[in-house]
């Protein structure tokens, strides 16, 4: 009987989405955990690129920040921050960008700036854009990882920090966004992908033991379900062991860190049998 949390399922699913030899622009938190799990398991030649300027970092543990020394010390190359954005991200050299989000809409647009309609006196002030707008614009594809709720999966964003498919088909072209946009959204309940015709995110994968109705209840719009909805295999023993090793290798004080910069959403730590 393998017991694991919803966050572990989410991280394992995210790790599986990365293919060996890809180049991956990694945000901090859960994206970094997933990317390093992929490196530790099926994708040893995954190329990790952090916005701090480290190219090809091979940390043996999950760094707390995108600027930890281990990222520079294990990198193939460390470049300046202007260079990482201008020469490496902007021209579309990076296969996949891994992003978190505070809010996401049906077109995969992302808000990490403010919650509440008034920018100048917001309900919650979030950290802001960081590297996300250009990661979302330029990577060949984008994967978003976030916990799913009616608050995070919003009908209407309070602020568009990073563009997914804008207001639907043709938006990215009109805006001159060279990358492919969000191809995958991974949550603690399942997996969403954009419909190729409408660009709207639809549920294409679901974790064992999670009913579709629960995913829909935790979505702020009328979530469509793919005709080919698949159940996603639970973590293998090897995946779980590798993930827990990775996280345990962080300093004890670092491990309880919330992956999202806002107050953690209440997440059901689903213990699911294997």
């Amino acid at each position, binding site marked *: 009987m393998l017991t694991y949390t919803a966050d572990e399922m989410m991280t394992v699913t995210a790790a599986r989405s990365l293919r060996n030899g890809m180049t991956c622009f990694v945000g901090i938190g859960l994206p970094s955990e997933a990317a390093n799990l992929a490196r530790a398991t099926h994708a040893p030649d995954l190329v990790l690129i952090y916005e701090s300027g480290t190219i090809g970092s091979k940390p043996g543990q999950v760094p707390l920040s995108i600027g930890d020394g281990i990222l520079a*010390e294990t990198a193939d190359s460390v470049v300046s921050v202007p260079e990482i954005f201008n020469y490496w991200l902007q021209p579309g050299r990076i296969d996949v960008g891994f992003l978190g989000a505070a809010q996401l809409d049906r077109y995969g647009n992302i808000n990490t700036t403010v919650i509440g309609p008034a920018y100048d006196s917001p309900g919650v002030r979030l950290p802001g854009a960081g590297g996300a707008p250009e990661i979302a614009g330029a990577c060949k594809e984008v994967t978003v990882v976030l916990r799913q709720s009616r608050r995070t999966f919003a009908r209407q964003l309070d602020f568009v920090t990073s563009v997914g498919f804008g207001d639907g088909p043709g938006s990215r072209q009109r805006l001159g966004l060279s990358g492919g946009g969000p191809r995958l959204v991974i949550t603690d309940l399942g997996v969403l992908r954009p419909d190729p015709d409408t660009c709207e995110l639809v549920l294409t994968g679901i974790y064992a033991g999670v009913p579709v109705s629960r995913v829909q209840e935790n979505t702020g719009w009328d979530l469509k379900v793919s005709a080919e909805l698949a159940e996603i295999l639970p973590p293998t023993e090897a995946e779980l062991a590798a993930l827990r090793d990775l996280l345990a290798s962080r300093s004890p004080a670092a491990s309880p860190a919330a992956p999202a910069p806002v107050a953690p959403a209440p997440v059901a730590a689903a213990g699911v049998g294997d």
Partner: protein
Amino acid sequence: MAQIVTLAEAISAAIRDGDTVAMEGFTHLIPHAAGHEVIRQRRRDLTLVRMTPDIIYDQLIGAGCTRKLVFSWAGNPGVGSLHRFRDAVENAWPRPLELEEHSHAGMANRFAAGAAGLPFAVLRGYRGTTLPAHTAGVADIVCPFTGETLTAVSALRPDVAVIHAQRADAQGNVQYWGISGVQKEAVLAASRSVVTVEEIVDRLDPRPGAVVLPWWAISYIAVVPGGAHPSYALGYSARDNDFYQAWDAISRDRQRFADWLDEHVYGRAAAGHASRSVTAC
């Protein structure tokens, strides 16, 4: 023409009330000790510029030094919110905080334009986002050759740049290595600069990945060992992740923050480093 002085002298000479100041460092080499000296010298009405304002900017905001923040990501990396920053934005405490908000790529290019003596930089970005609606210094620009529309961002030209580096030599050449961020651009974009260093050595041995800023491009250098703490200086110290975690609780409460500031910043001399022993508090 680098002058080697004390930290108190450097801050006093370089930074005036109302200045625009960029204290840069991308997680690595953040000039915390210099920031504490700014708080101690009770500078006011500063416009603070930085891609990733974190704890030291949270302190400068909470201490009331700051009128405006120019930034692209304001958080406690890997931990969560900056509570003094949020309190200022959400509740105007201890005073209102004006925001000028960009993306990382935009800020990096704004510094680069400043370093290059250009009034603007060009990039692919911002289009389709809400950012331009709330941010001056972003405009469409059309390529004169292809007709394509791109984005222009205005150059950053701070009055002062403040950075921390591993070493300087006696002539004032500054050397740092590891994650090098946007510090070169910040120093070259600014009118004046303050560099705190771990040590001064006779001669800067070449090091892999090292950036060297020549003495004639620097204004003031002060020796402040551990001056980046709780950030780190590769080869000299490790990042104090425990302090970043602890800051979350310290900064959530106004009184606890004020007490911390009294004990660890106001209560210390310029030469000592404020947050060294904070994990014990």
